[in-house]
């Protein structure tokens, strides 16, 4: 649309001309965009081809000039929107009550503060400390904690499935499991305080993980032996990508119970935990070999 043409047309009319401006040259038809190019595989070298089969990262998706193709950009934007949506979602306040879990809250006041102040998300509110002392079984082998973390979508989606699978697997291995609790506005390190208060041998927090592209529904689990305030990430063992396209919750529950049992047996966790004898039970999680070839599965499908 030409602003100049519009104003000249109006002026012509005002100055006494009746005939409209001669039409501009016709605009050429805009060609159709190329057909779907994602996930186009056009690796140029054997090395790139091999590398692309071992990752779900966006490798070998081609380019148009120096830019991405339109389809790739649309797919990227759709997957980014899923991630944004997952971070923005809040755990329903009655989620714990509906699932018969002991409800706990961190010191965070609202969702915005939760995102800006990780330190407050790592400590229990005073009220929650009392509720935990009054309502939870003392000195279990394993204290399971379900939490929202950075993706309440994942927590509401497959959180209960993972919690049940983990609880059953622990009991099968002869571990006593504490009162299941549900923490809102929680960060990983909240497990230290909860585990310390109930006197658990192992604290296990199962929470929504920071969404990546196309994974807004992933859960992570962090386990620590002898939880107490001041434990570092070097003291923890973790498992990520617990979702249908990664490790399904049923399989993950089993593997986490193996980890918990190993911690109780070896009386340690984190870097010093020896996993070499558990390759059979933990599968690829304990192996140091390159990942098996895999296909990227899309969480969102872009219409065109």
């Amino acid at each position, binding site marked *: 649309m*030409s*602003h*100049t*043409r519009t*104003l*000249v047309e*109006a*002026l*012509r009319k*005002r*100055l006494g*001309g009746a*005939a409209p*401006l*001669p039409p*501009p*040259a016709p*605009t050429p038809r805009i060609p159709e965009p190329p057909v779907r190019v994602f996930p186009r595989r056009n690796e140029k070298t054997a090395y790139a081809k091999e590398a692309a089969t071992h990752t779900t990262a966006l490798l070998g998706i081609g380019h*148009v*000039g*120096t830019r991405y193709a339109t389809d790739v950009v649309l797919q990227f934007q759709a997957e980014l929107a899923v991630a944004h949506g997952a971070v923005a979602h809040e755990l329903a306040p009655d989620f714990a009550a509906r699932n018969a879990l002991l409800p706990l809250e961190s010191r965070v006041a609202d969702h915005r503060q939760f995102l800006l102040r990780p330190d407050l998300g790592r400590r229990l509110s005073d009220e929650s400390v009392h509720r935990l002392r009054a309502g939870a079984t003392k000195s279990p082998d394993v204290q399971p904690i379900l939490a929202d973390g950075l993706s309440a979508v994942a927590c509401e989606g497959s959180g209960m499935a993972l919690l049940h699978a983990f609880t059953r697997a622990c009991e099968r291995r002869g571990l006593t499991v504490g009162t299941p609790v549900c923490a809102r506005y929680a960060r990983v390190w909240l497990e230290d305080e909860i585990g310390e208060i109930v006197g658990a041998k192992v604290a296990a927090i199962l929470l929504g993980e920071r969404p990546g592209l196309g994974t807004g529904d992933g859960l992570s689990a962090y386990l620590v032996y002898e939880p107490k305030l001041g434990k570092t990430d070097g003291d923890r063992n973790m498992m990520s990508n617990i979702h249908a396209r990664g490790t399904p919750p049923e399989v993950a529950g089993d593997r986490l119970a193996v980890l918990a049992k190993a911690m109780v047996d070896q009386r340690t966790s984190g870097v010093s935990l020896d996993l070499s004898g558990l390759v059979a039970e933990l599968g690829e999680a304990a192996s140091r070999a390159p990942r098996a070839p895999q296909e990227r599965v899309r969480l969102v499908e872009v219409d065109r």
Partner: protein
Amino acid sequence: MILEPIPPRILSVRRIPNADPAVLAAYGADPTRHRSLGLITVDQDDPTYVALDEATKHAPVDVVFARSFYAGAAHGSGPISGEILGVLAASDPDEIDEGLAALIRCLEHDACFYGADESKKTPVFPHVIASLGHYLSAQAGVAPGTSMAYLVAPPMEGAIALDAALKAADVRAAKIFPPPTETNFTAAWLVGSLVDCQAAAEAYCETVVRVAANPRER
């Protein structure tokens, strides 16, 4: 009929996909960033300046050279010299293609002179740019995205009309080019909000028409 469009004629469009560093440097490109050039000659200079700026909005190209030729298209050195040589530079020939496509689209559909009298002997260029690209904005010393009324007319008409335009709307003169310029026209770049630029351009155009119709008050 007055205010008939006088469409610009594109006389030549050529590309140099991988230009020699000496040529790049001579035409103001930066050999460390630029590699490809796109060159165009047109028989109207001001629509081309506008179109070159338009190109910077559609592709990562830089306008490295844009100069009007002395005394205008009627005195060109050759049949395809026209009135202006414009040069786009980019890191990649694909970007040049995109830039040239936007440039030509703008020349064919938007930017052109209009005849302020029946005989089309008094050209006027009352052009409104809603949002400047990074070429003209840098030339005018304003932020990219600013609205501009790009106004051109012959010396007498241009002087009277510029005064009328500045009084008609809340606009500021970013740059005024008094005569004689290379092509012996006079030009002005007014900036302000889009509606103010439109009002200024309309007042400018109307005044040029009135002065052309009545050159001697006494």
